[in-house]
Every structure is written in C-alpha cells, then in structure tokens.
C-alpha cells in the first residue's frame, strides 16, 4: 500500500463519517483544527480504518495522531502487522 493509496482510503472514510469532502483531506490537515472532527467521530474513523487497512489503532496511539499525515504514517508503518 502506497501513502497515496492510504490517503485516498482515509479521505473516503472521513467523507463518509464526517462529511468532509475527500479532496479537502490533505496530509497537513489537523483533524480537530482544520477538519472539525470531534473525538467521537475520530473513534469511528479509527475503527473504519482498521477495517479498511487491517491496522488497529489503539486509543493511546490515536490521541497522538493529530494530522492526516500522522494517520497515513501510522498505517504505512503498521500495515500487515495486525491484518
């Protein structure tokens, strides 16, 4: 999985759950400050990402993933490890 593929997949999830248009989900965006995504929706996004990428994001990791790029990096690094 390339970073581009992960980003595209993540953008799709965010559009579905939070209604942010996929093309606005760019790497430098902060979930809270830029995309207006609250902690409840982040939980849902994390579970959807787990289903899509096969990467589990534990709560103690999730709180440190503040930007789109953070999630892309996390998924890229852990892909395959929990699938």
């Amino acid at each position, binding site marked *: 999985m390339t970073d581009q593929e992960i980003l595209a997949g993540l953008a799709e999830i965010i559009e579905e759950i*939070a*209604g942010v248009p996929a093309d606005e989900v760019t790497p430098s965006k902060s979930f809270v400050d830029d995309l207006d995504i609250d902690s*409840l*929706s982040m*939980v*849902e996004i994390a579970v959807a990402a787990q289903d899509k990428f096969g990467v589990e994001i534990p709560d103690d990791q999730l709180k440190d993933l503040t930007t789109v790029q953070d999630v892309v990096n996390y998924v890229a690094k852990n892909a395959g490890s929990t699938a």
Partner: protein
Amino acid sequence: MTVDRETVVVTGLGATTPLGGDVASTWAAMLAGRSGVRAITEPWAAQLPVRIAAQAAADPAEAIGRVQARRMDRCEQFALVAAREAWADAGSPEVDPERLGVAVTSGIGGIGSTLAAYDTLNAKGWQRISPYTVPMLMPNGSAGWISMEFTAHAGAHSLVSACASGAEAIGYGIDMIRSGRADVVLAGGTEAAIMALNVGAFAVMRAMSTRNDEPERASRPFDKARDGFVLGEGSGMVVLESASHARRRGAAPYAVAAGAGYSSDAYHIAHPAPDGAGVVSAISRALADARVDPSQVVHVNAHATSTPEGDAVEAQALAKALGPAVDGVVVSSTKSMTGHLLGGAGAVESVAAICALRDRVAPPTINLEDLDDEVPVDVATQPRPLAAHGRSGSPPPAVLNNAFGFGGHNVSLVFTAA
C-alpha cells in the same frame, strides 16, 4: 387582568407528521379529513398482530443532511426539523442566548438507535457501535441538539411522562418564561417508535387497533367500534415568548399560552382511573392557571387515542370539568388522522389546537360513524366553525389540549386568542 406575572404567547409553530412535513400541509390535511395510516410494509410486521401505522410523510434525514443525520436518532431528526420550522415561523427572533430556553422531549427516546446498536453489539462487537449511540438513545437528545442549533443557554429540559410528554414540555416552557428564566423557549415533543419491539409491546397490552385490512379506518376515537390506537411518529414544536419580548420585536402572536394543569392518577401504571378524577383535576387546574372561565372554551383537541377505555373516560371528565359550559364546545381528536405520536402527540395537537383557534375552525374526527353512548360531548365529524368570541361575550375564546400518559400523567393546556 392581573399583572403579577409575565404573559406567554405563541409566536411560532412547527410540525412534521404523518400528514405532512410541515404545519401548513398537516393542518390542510386535517381540515380535509385525510388519514395518515397505512399498512406497514417492512417484513418485521408479518409476525405481529398489528400491521398498520402512521409513518411520517417526510423523511427527516433528507432535511437534516446525511452526515448530521447519522449522529441523530430519527426522533431527534423530527424534533430538529420541527424546531427549525417553528423558529423560522417566529421570524428567527433575535434573543440573548442566556434568555433562550429549550423544553423538548420524547416519551420513549431513541429506541430505533438503541435496537440497532444492540444488534451491532451482538453481531460485530462493542467497537462497531456508533460512538454517538448514547446521545442517540437518551430522551433528552433532541433538547441538546436544538439548544446547539439555536445557541440556547437558558437551559434545555426534557421532562418525560410517556404520551403526555409533549404537552408537559410546553407547560414547562410556559413556566420558564413566567419564572423569569427565559424570554423565548422552543417547546415540543417528538417520537419515532414504529419498530417491531414497540408495536409488539403495545400489542401485547391489547392497546392497539388490529384493523389491519382497513388502515385508514383503524383510528376511530369516540366511535363505538374503536378497538385501540394506531402508532404514529413525528414532532410538534412551538415558540413560546414573553408577551413583552414579542411586542418589542413586533411579532404577532398566534395565541396566548394561557395555562397548564397537571395531575397524577396514582391508580394504575397503564390504565386510566375509571372515574376520570385525575383528568377533571388537570382540566380544572389548567383553566384556573389560565384564569379562563369554562364558558370561554370553544374547542378541545382531545387526547382520545381510540382505545375503548380511555376515550369515554376523557369525554366524561371533560363534561364534568366544564359543567354546563360543555354544551357548545366542539371536541376533536386529530389522532383519527395522525395516529398516536406518543411523546409527540401533545405537541402536535397543541399546534393543531392553535391553528383551530387562529382559523376559528375545529378539525374533524374522522371514522366517527357511530358515537359511543358513553361519550357525552359534541364531537366534530366535519370541520366546524368556532365562535369568534368567548360565548359569555367579550373574553377571548379558549381552546384546550389534553394529553395523558402511562404512569397516570394528566396534562391539560389552555390557549386563548391573542
């Protein structure tokens, strides 16, 4: 008129019901005597003895938008739709957020979301439950969402009293203004409970009509052949406002929200007390609170759900509470058309009663073909003109809305011409 308390007026109306997605379409359908009851087409109905219901005419999720709708139970969506309409109808009042309150509730709460989440829990595990499940199932969810939408900081409240909830919320809203805690209050009730569990649970109480072959004729309050209520869904909402606030901004009120009366039967958890004493008390207390004489009452939107027991008790209690003045009072049960909206009922029916007062016409009670001998009041079967003035002369005409709930809750509201 004494001036020891703030007069509360109604300056906005909202509704989404089985008859229409707003007040205008709902009221027009009521005057036309249309039924909103249909066969339930979902497969789950096949296992049940009741296969009819009055589903909402308009999908609230469409108005709310997909992303917002997936965080809200259907009952919360109805409430928000009705609140938006009422707010716009009131002219989107400019009000200090600290002086804007919410009194919106539901009899059951987000039961559809509860059931769906439980299915997900069992099928896929706890992590797959929506993180919005709790806000969707709590009965105060609608009040919370509405407070956010309109930035209401004076307090958001949700009293729960089963099928009296919507009326009780309006009563609470009146109190918020009278007690000086708010200048404007969005008040109403909502319900979205047409689910297999609810239909089954009411059916096992033998409370529902099983006239499955004739859905439109199933809800027949006060008729000899009535055999139970028909479940409906939707929401009703009013904007309550202190008369001084409304005057300052030049808003023309629909009516005065003149008073509310309450009682509790303390008799049985689900059956009305057969002597109707609690209903008499609620009506009498509402009239006293409103400082309205029975002779001013021209119309009653009755609770009458089409159950054999309840309709007769209410009609007899009305006759007792109003005394000789009951002659000339036109009674209607709009549940004959909307079905029973449970926690939404008292609010939708208050909206209907206010429309009746505004247009000076009582809506019909459809399917009333053979009036029960135990019903000693004048029930309209066709739209009926109402007196332009209180019958004793100069005092303004008044209308009542009754709402009663399992648990023995009785609420009566009085509205007078503005």
